[in-house]
């Protein structure tokens, strides 16, 4: 089951560049939350702070607190433990090119030392079914490379790979921006199904996409969160003038 995320006074820097300033918000459990805003506004940095991927860059720095469920991720746990509980799907599909489809899905477990073949088989099947890829790949799970799939299939493979480690939260950083409309709509259907089991945070440049998949939407601008509310309210009656300007296409 998914858990809620409580962000308090979050600040982030890349070197001397203050990319996130005083972010406070509550992301509800088992819902999809969309983050919109122009390029460079800090929304990708924000999701990377939620699983401590931010700090893989040596010049990056973070202050403030992020609580995922009962866990303060910057106080109570190591980055590798957080990342097993908070899965991530990236903008470009990035399956491991040397691995089969099966090994790609199993990689998170295998690389962390899990070896029980029977259980692995079950988890791989379940994850591929959850990511709506099973029927397309079940016949050559171990024969074909993950890199031999189409772009849309690769992205669903990456979602299956993230689901296989059984996270509570799924972060998606523009998961459909490199895909065609058909693949995009498959990913969106998937987000709809997955949010009953996971808390989903999705960064998107596509405002229609935010409106279609998310209950809550946050608007970021220049490293600050301008407005956070129900998606319906953001897109029909935003409280802030800047949000209105952005969603009506006046800038960005």
């Amino acid at each position: 089951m998914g858990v809620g995320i409580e962000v308090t006074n979050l600040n982030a820097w890349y070197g001397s560049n203050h990319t996130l300033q005083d972010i406070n918000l509550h992301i509800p459990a088992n819902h999809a939350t969309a983050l919109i805003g122009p390029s460079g506004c800090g929304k990708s940095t924000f999701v990377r702070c939620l699983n401590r991927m931010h700090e893989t860059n040596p010049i990056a720095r973070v202050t403030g607190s992020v609580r995922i469920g009962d866990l303060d991720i910057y106080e109570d746990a190591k980055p590798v433990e957080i990342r097993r509980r908070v899965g991530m799907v990236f903008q470009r599909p990035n399956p491991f090119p040397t691995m089969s489809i099966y090994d790609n899905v199993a990689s998170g477990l295998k690389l962390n030392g899990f070896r029980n073949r029977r259980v692995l088989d079950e988890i791989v099947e379940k994850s591929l079914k959850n990511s709506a890829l099973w029927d397309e790949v079940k016949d050559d799970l171990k024969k074909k490379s993950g890199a031999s799939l189409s772009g849309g299939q690769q992205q669903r493979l990456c979602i299956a790979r993230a689901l296989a480690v059984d996270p509570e939260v799924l972060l998606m950083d523009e998961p459909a921006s490199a895909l065609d409309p058909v693949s995009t709509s498959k990913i969106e259907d998937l987000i709809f199904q997955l949010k009953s089991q996971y808390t989903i945070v999705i960064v998107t440049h596509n405002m229609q996409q935010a409106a279609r998949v998310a209950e809550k939407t946050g608007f970021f601008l220049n490293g600050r969160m301008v407005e956070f509310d129900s998606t319906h309210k953001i897109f029909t009656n935003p409280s802030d003038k800047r949000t209105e300007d952005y969603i009506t296409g006046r800038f960005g």
Partner: protein
Amino acid sequence: MVKQKTSAQTRIRAVTDHAVTGLAIAATVLVIAPLVAIFVYLILRGASSLNLDFFTKIPKPVGEKGGGMANAIVGSGILLAVASAIGVPIGIGGGIFLAEFGRGTRLANSIRFTADVLNGVPSIVMGVAAYALIVSPHISFLPMLGHFSALSGGVALGIMMIPTVCRTTEEMLLMVPHAIREAALGLGVPNWRSVLSITVKTASPGIITGCMLAFARVAGETAPLIFTALGNSFWSTSLNEPIAALPLQIYVYAISPYDEWHRLAWAGALVLIVLIVLAVSLVRYVTSRGVLKGAS
């Protein structure tokens, strides 16, 4: 009017296209030509002296007909095995450090600089240095060192392999897309595990090519062996004794005044090249099996 101009432009483009394609083909031929020329010439000069004795007998004393280079073939194999056992793990380990763990540190920069300098050191200098460090009698209190031996020859060749293996490993690791590393880290895989199981594995075809390049380079080295392995006219497979090697044998035979030995030197050169090609092809074949369809 406009149309005419366009068709003239099209013609110019077509001509340019053909010219550049022709240049590329010419360059390809020039690259391949020396290899083919060497091979053909070696076959012409050496093939007639090849027979079963060449692969099964040791050299005969001066004046006697026949004899072979069996001891040199086996000796080269042993020397290269020792060299690879030293050069490949140290080189790959160093390359991983440069690309992954030490990137940007002062230590990494000085290792990279050292490797580049070491790569440019002439092999004769490497041989003299190896002689001074591990062959000359002052360290004979250590087991197996302090005298001419197969081990010291292997060490000298192994040291020569390190910089090539190290730098190509680094280059190949840096070519692995950042997205692949992020994918592994995002799954909660510890960094060291991600490096070994994902990054190195993804780069492994290139790393193997680097090892093969280094292997082929030292397989033909003569100078460092003169001061270390020394050469041997008799059977020896001991790491503790001087050992024969194909390049050494070719060198000794080629500068001798005897026609019979000249012919054997040609045959030896042919065998050396064929064996290197076979070894490289074998490694490529073995390591390419199990690669999945559609992997790019």
